[in-house]
């Protein structure tokens, strides 16, 4: 357990940091560190210094996190050490973002970067083509879950009663339940539910258009929508497959190799590693695909976007009562975020975490109620 935490926390936070640094480079040149700047200042020395500082901030945050992990493990707080470093790293990296973007905000205000320059709001009046998300990942998810289910069905008569339903990290059972369809197939049912949910989300994600930045030309705006839709659909459907694979592997390890410590643990660690690989792989690919959208052609200059910084709190949260949109393109990273100035946006912001919390508590209670 101790060794696991000592390796897991630093590796996990390092991957998180790489992801954060990759995301910074995804945005158009007019939005460094989620601050709106005119094209004439996108290579301003202040902007370049701020981005460099943000990267160093991420490294520093990682060093602090690693030190805290070691301290927690040495003081025999290993269970805490699995949770606290990840949270600490998230807080420190957001702090690095807020502090370094403040530099650009100040220079922009004092230098009057937006004074007297022409600005526009832009949108695509013809609908960008909609592509159905590929079926291959949902199909593969269904296949691996079906294989694990088939094994469970075949083994059902020989399974013990009561049957173990909860295991320690070493794969030893620590809770049992009367043998029933629920206690045997419970994990696979949760897996199937998660796959369906993520697949539905991936289909929904493919329908929204990215909000056009005025400094993009028509092809660049269309490319941005295409990449954003493609990233979210492939990310969600690949994550669904990885979860289906991990859950099936854990289920098979329990049934076919009961009591073998490494089998269950390998499934769990493999799952976390694969999730990070899928996320970083997809973001890195989106970054390459977006390069033509972030290039600027001095022979065909585009107008600048309107300075809308006052609606972006900390560069991360969007609050604009005058905007009819409930969902808008994120400024930092790719994807969509809620407009918290919209009545439904506030309701969703409160209800979504509540629903997730209620769902998790219900799952835990169900697993322990036997």
């Amino acid at each position, binding site marked *: 357990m101790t060794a696991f935490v000592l390796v897991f926390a630093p590796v996990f936070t390092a991957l998180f940091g790489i992801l954060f640094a990759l995301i910074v480079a995804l945005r158009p040149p007019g939005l460094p560190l989620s601050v709106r700047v005119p094209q004439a200042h996108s290579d301003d020395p202040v902007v370049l210094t701020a981005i460099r500082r943000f990267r160093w901030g991420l490294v520093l945050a990682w060093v602090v996190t690693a030190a805290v992990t070691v301290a927690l493990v040495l003081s025999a707080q290993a269970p805490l050490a699995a949770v606290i470093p990840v949270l600490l790293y998230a807080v420190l990296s957001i702090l690095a973002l807020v502090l370094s973007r403040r530099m650009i905000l100040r220079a922009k205000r004092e230098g009057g970067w937006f004074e007297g320059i*022409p*600005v526009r*709001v832009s949108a695509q009046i013809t609908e960008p083509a909609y592509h159905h998300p590929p079926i291959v990942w949902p199909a593969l998810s269904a296949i691996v879950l079906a294989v694990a289910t088939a094994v469970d069905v075949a083994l059902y008569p020989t399974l013990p009663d009561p049957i173990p339903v909860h295991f320690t990290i070493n794969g030893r059972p620590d809770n049992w339940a009367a043998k029933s369809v629920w206690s045997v197939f419970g994990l696979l049912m949760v897996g199937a539910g998660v796959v369906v949910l993520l697949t539905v989300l991936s289909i929904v994600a493919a329908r929204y258009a990215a909000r056009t930045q005025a400094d993009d030309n028509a092809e660049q705006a269309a490319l941005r929508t295409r990449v954003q839709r493609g990233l979210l659909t492939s990310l969600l459907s690949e994550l669904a497959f990885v979860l289906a694979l991990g859950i099936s592997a854990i289920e098979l390890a329990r049934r076919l190799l009961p009591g073998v410590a490494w089998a269950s643990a390998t499934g769990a660690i493999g799952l976390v590693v694969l999730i990070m690989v899928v996320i970083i792989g997809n973001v890195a690919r989106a970054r390459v695909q977006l390069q033509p959208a972030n290039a600027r052609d001095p022979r065909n200059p585009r107008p600048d976007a309107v300075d809308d910084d006052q609606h972006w709190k900390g560069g991360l949260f969007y609050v604009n009562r005058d905007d009819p*949109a409930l969902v808008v393109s994120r400024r930092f990273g790719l994807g969509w975020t809620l407009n918290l100035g919209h009545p439904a946006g506030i309701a969703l912001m409160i209800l979504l975490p509540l629903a997730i919390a209620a769902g998790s508590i219900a799952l835990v209670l169900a697993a322990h109620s036997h």
Partner: protein
Amino acid sequence: MLIDIDPHSESPLYQQLRDQVVQAIADGTLKPGDSLTSVRQLAGQFGINSATVGKGYELLRHEGLVRTSRRSGSVIARGPAEEPTPGFSEGWTDRLRTLLAEAVAHGMSEASIRQTTDSLLAEFASRRAGAGRSAS
């Protein structure tokens, strides 16, 4: 196709929207049958009131340049290749009279007015030819 709106301009936002669609039809960027983003979605894209976008679409519908059906939404209704709608030229002549009067009042010579008109018409035609080539 991109529409750029200047939020600080004296010309109202719906008018800017309408003018750019008319120009896109003239230079072949928008062709008869092209479907337009719905009012609600376009307003969400711009981040402006739906009523403003609706007013721009209403103007275009009134002029016969756009038609809206429940099934296919708003589509471009006509293009440069078709005969003008009856009654169009009277209203247009009135507006052109004002524009020409402005030019004359500001001292533009007849020759330079004609030259400007010709070069603008040539620009629409050459864009239309370009749009036709890239589409085929």
